[in-house]
């Protein structure tokens, strides 16, 4: 190198330095609602040891976390809580949807269970499995680190462009038909206006 630098100095970009620090100290927020939570605990325990990847600091306060791990099914009563926790987490933050239920509702295709959290909060990484083995979650964390290193910027500019929902639409077509039927029989309380305001494109935390 033309410029003579002392031995203990190296040149890098701020983004790369921030990504290096962030990716190696992801602090997970465990949102464990079902059996996936048990696998999540196993991942953090000594045999699989999430600490090897710098992600062992499970914080039970969203204010101190930057990686939301949704482990387990989310029911409609729990979804506002999940959204609130997501909003409470400081930037930069990422989200792993762990297991079939968090990704798609799994076998619980019933009136109370949300068919995938990605309909309502942004998700960066999906882990398939019912429940996934700890190795799969570890792989997801490693992939997450890779994603942070590759896409991260120190000011979180990469998040600004993600202003449209990336998940499926909240209402599937068959769900729309059921809503129409319900409105035809005039159940009251759950009005058509309330339904249409909840469709894709509604922004913010209502």
């Amino acid at each position, binding site marked *: 190198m033309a410029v003579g630098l002392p031995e203990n100095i190296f040149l890098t970009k701020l983004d790369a330095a921030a990504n290096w620090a962030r990716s190696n100290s992801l602090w997970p927020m465990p949102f464990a609602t079902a059996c996936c939570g048990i696998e999540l605990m196993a991942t953090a325990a000594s045999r699989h040891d999430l600490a090897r990847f710098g992600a062992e600091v499970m914080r039970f306060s969203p204010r101190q976390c930057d990686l939301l791990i949704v482990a387990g099914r989310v029911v*409609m009563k729990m979804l506002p809580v999940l959204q609130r926790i997501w909003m409470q987490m400081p930037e930069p933050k990422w989200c792993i949807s762990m297991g079939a239920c968090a990704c798609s509702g799994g076998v619980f295709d019933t009136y109370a269970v949300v068919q995938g959290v990605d309909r*309502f909060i942004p998700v960066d990484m999906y882990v398939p499995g019912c429940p996934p083995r700890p190795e799969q979650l570890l792989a997801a964390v490693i992939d997450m680190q890779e994603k942070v290193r590759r896409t991260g910027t120190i000011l979180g500019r990469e998040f*600004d462009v993600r202003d449209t929902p990336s998940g499926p639409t909240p209402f599937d077509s068959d769900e729309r038909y059921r809503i129409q039927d319900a409105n035809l029989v005039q159940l009251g309380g*759950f009005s058509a206006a309330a*339904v249409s305001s909840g469709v894709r494109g509604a*922004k913010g935390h209502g």
Partner: protein
Amino acid sequence: MADLQALREKLGVELAESSFRDNLRVDVAAERIFDVLSYLKSEAGFDMLVDLTAVDYLEYEGATDRFGVVYLLLNVASGERLMVRTAVNLPDPRLPSVYSLWRGSDWMEREVFDMFGIVFEGHPDLRRILMPEEFAAFPLRKDYPLKGRGERHNFPVITRAGS
């Protein structure tokens, strides 16, 4: 065995008795259910309400009433059990609350109200217990679709830039 004959004579109430294996079942009209349960608790020693639940008999073969409400009683001293059943119908399914007899009926009546829409008069705090407050339907009724009517997806969508 519970002395059902004495109950009939004392209250002047019609009881249809039946049994399945070792379960003794008694069917009571909804108007007299509180009197019967009150008697069973105070006179026959059924001091524990094990369970209180409901059944929707919509499209059930041979059923004459829409909802059956089931009280499972236990006499702790003798180990004797009794199933007391009654029936209510739409459009206004109503029953007297047994909260004054067994405090344990509190959440069970709330659950039956939440799932079937059966109102328990005299219950101190008849709110939904499982579903969210703003939920408008009664999901365990047979005419309610398994996948609901879109309630599970009626939430705002949070985007990455907006959070």
